[in-house]
């Protein structure tokens, strides 16, 4: 188990390195970035000085890259071009909001998807099953912004149940959380159902029944653990989906989190901020995948013993 964990940790490094390379390359390729000496857009002297210190704009490329990596290691992501704060500071102040939204959405998704998936599998081809599959299909297919727009239209504009935008009170939080969780919820429901159906067909279920165990014990004691293991492995990608979905949801609902900041920085061409947030996202996703891999290893004895 330990070797497995170490191996997964080691895989993290090339991934993050690759991310750094990509961000560096893109930052240099983007027009209007600090590296683009455009006389029409002179930057304030203080910013230029900071940029020089951080990125070493006049030095050869590979030196710049090393400097960049060094900065990253110190969590120095540069300064925003538009606002007079460092990227790290901006991220730090808005991360809690996004984190709260994300965690709420994930918990909601799990709380609904797991039981729903299990029940659908056990009551296959009944009304419950069909209904949940329809919902799951809709949730995975229709883009989140479409759902968000429709939701706003129905609940906020027409029915006036909820304020359209803002954050802070439960009334503000409910719609963004639900909309954000839908994609993951639908996906996880499908996965759980499929996994349960697969597990229930296995020979060891027949063996369990042949021992005279009541059906409930068979399902809970024998099937469930086997069925949930594959589901655990997809929580990683589901979380990744949540992270990437968050910037759309935050933008639409005007939630003051990192995601909205990200989208705004795109329109404003605030490259350091764009890059910084991207790095953060990539790091978080890699971390989520790693966590999931570890959990999976802990659950499945076939891996644990290896």
């Amino acid at each position, binding site marked *: 188990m330990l070797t497995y964990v170490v191996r997964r940790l080691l895989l993290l490094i090339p991934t993050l390195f690759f991310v750094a390379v990509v961000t560096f390359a893109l930052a240099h390729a983007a027009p209007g970035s600090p590296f683009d000496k455009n006389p029409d857009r002179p930057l304030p002297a203080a910013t230029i000085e900071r940029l020089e210190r951080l990125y070493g704009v006049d030095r050869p490329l590979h030196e710049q890259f090393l400097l960049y990596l060094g900065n990253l290691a110190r969590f120095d992501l540069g300064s925003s071009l538009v606002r007079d704060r460092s990227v790290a500071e901006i991220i730090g102040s808005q991360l809690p909001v996004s984190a709260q939204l994300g965690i709420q959405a994930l918990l909601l998704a799990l709380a609904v998807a797991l039981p729903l998936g299990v029940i659908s599998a056990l009551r296959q081809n009944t009304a419950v099953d069909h209904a949940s599959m329809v919902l799951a299909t809709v949730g995975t297919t229709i883009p989140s912004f479409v759902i968000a727009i429709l939701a706003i239209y129905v609940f906020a504009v027409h029915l006036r149940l909820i304020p359209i935008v803002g954050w802070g009170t439960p009334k503000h939080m409910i719609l963004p959380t639900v909309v954000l969780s839908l994609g993951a919820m639908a996906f996880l429901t499908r996965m759980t159902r499929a996994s349960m159906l697969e597990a229930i067909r*296995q*020979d*060891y279920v*027949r*063996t*369990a*029944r*042949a*021992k*005279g*165990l*009541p059906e409930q014990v068979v399902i809970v*004691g*024998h099937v469930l*653990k*086997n069925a949930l*293991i594959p589901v655990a492995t997809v929580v990683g990608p589901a979380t990744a989906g949540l992270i990437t979905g968050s910037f759309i949801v935050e933008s639409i609902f005007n939630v003051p989190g990192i995601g909205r900041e990200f989208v705004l920085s795109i329109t404003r061409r605030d490259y350091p901020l764009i890059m910084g947030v991207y790095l953060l996202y990539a790091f978080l996703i890699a971390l989520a995948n790693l966590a999931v891999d570890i959990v999976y290893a802990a*659950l*499945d*004895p*076939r891996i644990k*013993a290896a």
Partner: protein
Amino acid sequence: MALLEVRDLYTQFFTRDGVVRAVDGVTFEVGAGETLGLVGESGCGKSVTALSLMRLIPSPPGKITQGEIMFDGQDVLKMDEDDVRGIRGNNIAMIFQDPMTSLNPVLTISRQVSEALELHLKMDRSEARKRTVELLELVGIPSARKRLDDYPHQFSGGMRQRVMIAMALSCNPKLILADEPTTALDVTIQAQILDLLKTLAREFRTAFILITHDLGVVAGMTQRIHVMYAGRIVEKADTAELFANPKMPYTWGLLRSIPRLDERRKEKLVPIEGLPPDLISPPPGCKFEPRCAYRRDVCREQEPPLRKIPSAKPDHEARCWGTQEGGWLVGTDWRREIGDVSVLEEIKQETAAVPAGAATIAPSDLPPDVSHKEGV
């Protein structure tokens, strides 16, 4: 009254393509402490029969439509679900074919063996654990105490099957159903497992139904053998009698197709030609008729009943017009019949040339006083 009496059992599967008559009227019995062999090709219904005995047939497609299963004086088919569950794993236990997939990969073997003990014998956790160690040692698993908390994938195939056997034995059942217990194992391990089963049967006086397609396996293990084909029993006999004096062409085919070490290497293996019948719309007459080298018209028209055979031991029954009273195969010496393949061809041609109804005797030296009447 025998330990197990099965009468007129019919188990069917209702599929989109039609109704599959997997078990089509099966009647047999097993006495206490007795080992019965249930032999036949894949798909002949032997496994379904065993599952029916414990009512483990998956219910949306499958259904036991008719019959009586009297176990220890009670009809299993009339019990309610709770009572049946009380019997499973307790009075009747089952060993399945593939130990790799039949054990739960995420539970320790201790847990899997103890389950039945805790459920049926109401042992508590530590008692069950102790008993589990005893059981594992009984089936020959070394260092049982240390391996209690290991998982199935940490055992070899043969060891896993021993675990399955320990599970089956745990509550001292009166009857164990062993469904192809050695098919998934290496040949060398097979012998060990079979030995184990034989020893256990003797020591604990447990009745066994040994299900297999391999006549070689049942030879040294059983007191009686029933041969199944297309959902029915086509021959019943004591083991020695079956091997010495089989009375059904299908059985001859099975015996002929066992590769024997004492055969000359030049001899080809002789399979039974053709394929098993369609269980959704089986032919009206004898189910084996299309593949039988000895068939007559009557075989296609009417299904033979399972009847006692003259010139055989009293408990010997077969489902064949040819070998029953007055049939054209009555005096046939099966060893001569299929000892030589060319003879088989000759017979085929001869029987094909004979008009229906006329009785002939197969060639070679038959004692002159064999009576023959008009074919049925």
